[in-house]
């Protein structure tokens, strides 16, 4: 209870794992009928995994909540965000209607460029409908249209999983990842037919779509002949490393094993593979700055990646790492959570941004695209004046303060 971000803001029992699990048990035991409130409570969870990581008894409330979402999905109409998520594969033609009169035509046109299964599709038309104010500009030329299917550089083959945000919103980050992996001595393969990692669908209970995406992506990467699959987004890498094996385990044990063992988060990958001497040569320091590092929940709670990014930063001459006094705090993004519970999400975002503001950071770096979007928005809304960027932009010397 002490680690739940939504409980910390609301102080309500229905927000915390203990409450949600009791309600799910009551619902399953038919003591609680299906209601809008129950659906709402099941949806109001960031799936950040903090409770699971701290649970001494090994309970996985996040997985149980996701499971309940998938059950509810089978039981007919659900909330509009969950509905949107469920329709990702076939929804392309429906977007203009769903957007309603409030959505601008321009936004609709831009969004049509994004394949329907992308997690981003759930976000951008809705940015207009929801209260989200700060929307990163969509890139005119998605990353994958520029670099797909080419093998770049020499050395052991690494497949780059780009992810929707890295493709459409922050292609410059994907370019920085290419550069970094190249400097580290890898040949980078970017399969052009890769799709969304499937996290948005999975998190909203749409196991079918998540499985279809898992099958597709695993086939594409296995065929590419790469030795590892690396992603610069903590959410994507969690989906690849933990969910693909779960979703495909029975049907495709080979693919499941490959993703369990060979798909790695970018930072953990290079820190794990390379010696500090090699790394120091590959990195480029941005100069004298104080960098705060925000731990993405998907890295910290789901993959126990804590030391690696800090070790990377410590190798940069001139860079000092800020150490906020209070404990880790989820950014409050949570994918669809941010849309469905915008106010609560912003409140949590404020708390996480002010930690770093107080700690005297110039730059706030993270290693997940979802966190990045949320922290940028929180930074903007609360006028914190930090430079919010991806860790890879710091270690390739691209960040400018």
């Amino acid at each position, binding site marked *: 209870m002490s*680690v739940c971000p939504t409980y910390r803001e609301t102080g309500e029992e229905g927000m915390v794992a203990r409450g949600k699990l009791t309600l799910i048990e009551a619902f399953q035991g038919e003591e609680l009928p299906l209601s809008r409130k129950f659906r709402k409570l099941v949806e109001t969870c960031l799936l950040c995994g903090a409770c699971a990581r701290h649970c001494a008894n090994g309970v996985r409330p996040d997985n149980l909540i996701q499971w309940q979402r998938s059950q509810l999905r089978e039981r007919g109409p659900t909330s509009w965000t969950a509905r949107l998520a469920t329709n990702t594969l076939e929804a392309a033609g429906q977007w203009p209607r769903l957007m309603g009169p409030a959505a601008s035509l321009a936004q609709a046109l831009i969004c049509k460029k994004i394949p329907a299964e992308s997690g981003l599709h759930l976000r951008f038309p809705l940015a207009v409908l929801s209260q989200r104010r700060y929307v990163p500009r969509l890139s005119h030329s998605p990353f994958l249209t520029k670099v797909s299917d080419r093998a770049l550089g020499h050395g052991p083959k690494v497949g780059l999983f780009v992810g929707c945000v890295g493709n459409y919103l922050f292609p410059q980050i994907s370019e920085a990842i290419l550069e970094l992996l190249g400097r580290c001595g890898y040949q980078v393969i970017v399969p052009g037919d890769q799709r969304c990692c499937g996290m948005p669908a999975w998190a909203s209970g749409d196991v079918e779509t998540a499985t279809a995406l898992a099958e597709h992506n695993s086939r594409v990467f296995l065929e590419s002949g790469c030795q590892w699959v690396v992603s610069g987004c903590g959410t994507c890498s969690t989906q690849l490393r933990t969910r693909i094996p779960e979703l495909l385990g029975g049907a495709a044990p080979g693919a499941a094993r490959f993703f369990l063992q060979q798909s790695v988060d970018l930072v953990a990958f290079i820190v794990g593979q390379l010696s500090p001497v090699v790394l120091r040569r590959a990195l480029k320091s941005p100069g004298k700055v104080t960098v705060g590092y925000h731990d993405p929940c998907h890295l910290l709670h789901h993959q126990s990646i804590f030391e690696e990014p800090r070790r990377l930063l410590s190798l940069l001459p001139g860079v000092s790492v800020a150490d906020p006094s209070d404990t880790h705090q989820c950014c409050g993004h949570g994918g669809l959570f941010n849309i469905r519970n915008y106010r609560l999400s912003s409140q949590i975002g404020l708390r996480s941004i002010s930690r770093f503001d107080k700690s005297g950071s110039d730059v706030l770096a993270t290693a997940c695209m979802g966190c990045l979007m949320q922290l940028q928005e929180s930074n903007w809304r609360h006028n914190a004046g930090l430079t919010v960027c991806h860790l890879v932009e710091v270690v390739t010397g691209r960040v400018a303060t």
Partner: protein
Amino acid sequence: MLVRETIRKLSAIVGRERCRTDREDLICYGYDATDLHYSPEAVVFAEDVKEIAAIVRLANETPFYLIPRGAGSGMSGGSLPVRGGVVVALSQMNGILSIDTENLVAVVEPGVVTGHLQAEVANLGLFYPPDPASLGFCTIGGNVAECAGGARALKYGVTKDYVLGLEAVLGTGELVRTGVQTAKGVVGYDLTKLLVGSEGTLAIITKVVLKLLPQPESRRTLMAVFEQLGEAITAVTRIIGSGLLPCALEFMDQRSIRCVEDYLNIGLPRGAGGLLLIEVDGVTEGVTRHAEEIRELCLRERAQRVDTAGSEAEADELWQARRAVSPALFRLNPDKVSEDITVPRNRIPDIVATLEEIGQRQRLGILCFGHAGDGNIHVNIMIDRSDSDEVARTKQAVKEIFEATLELGGTLSGEHGIGITKTPYLGMEIDEIGLDAMRRIKTALDPKGILNPGKIFLDSNERAAVMGKLWKTRR
């Protein structure tokens, strides 16, 4: 049953958004850290003292029951709505109103999380010592109502030692301010101490004035492992007898050690009979010297090994073992029966021997750990509630444990409170005259019996009902 009109009136006081009657809220506010569940009829989230006074007045007029609630971390069922009524959730009254660094006093609202307060005062170089295990989410209001303790009680005492004054709404709806904002005060009866530990049966606490201390300069943690539990307990007696006063002196018995080791794999010797976790704090020179003295003393008492933490991270690692006990126990059996008896410090060896004897006779796995320094022992019996014979033997064992505790001059509960789980046993410790005096106080402050009914004092029918619920077999 609450009628619609009453709900409407409650909504008028707190606003519709903060007055809930949805089934989901009634489920979520019907439990605490015990395994028991009772459904309230409504939940209101109070935001200030005026609202609370209005709610209590309305409850008197109507009438209906009120059950104050912090974070629901209680171990004895103190916040359970056993007779229905309205849960008054205080989690949103969570402001730290002032921290006075010159007078070492903090004024807080009841919903402040204990750990948050500790962190805030620590930023100012100050210290709020009480540290119940749930300090990450339990609230000051709940700590005051149950008089929560913790590991540091040996040196620093418990919650009641830090409450200087209170603002509270009595069962009649009147607002009362008790105590002082000064270090001393003897004007009138000590109503503050009366309300501390009254488990929400006399008043709803709306503001707490707390005493603070300067943050100790440094801290040192040691872990000593013994072959026999008896040796560990002798070491405890020796440490305290030699004039040393650690801030914490915790012990774990063999079963607890094994259980934690199986769970965490941190290299605890599975064969060890007893383990002590000792923390000293104060000025750095003194801490270093005392830690060394304690280390030598433990070795003299045949400790197999003594580890001293060099850094905060290492100290945290040592504490990890002790903190993991409670959760790790569930690896043994699905259900836990947990008592927190306290005996005079020098009787710990006697009670430990008795517990061993009872465990063997009743064929139950009894695990002991806890605050050896102050005699407060957490006795945990891990059982499977679907086994009716085991439940019956446990029921008998608990009664025998309580009898033995009282015989040794101890008390039934050191820090959990009576709530409902210990109500059937209250008469074993407090005689009829004492109980009657308490009941008269209750009647004086809450004449209509509005506040937290079904707690502490029960008639024989109610006691039987609680016993039935406590020792129920799971189907």
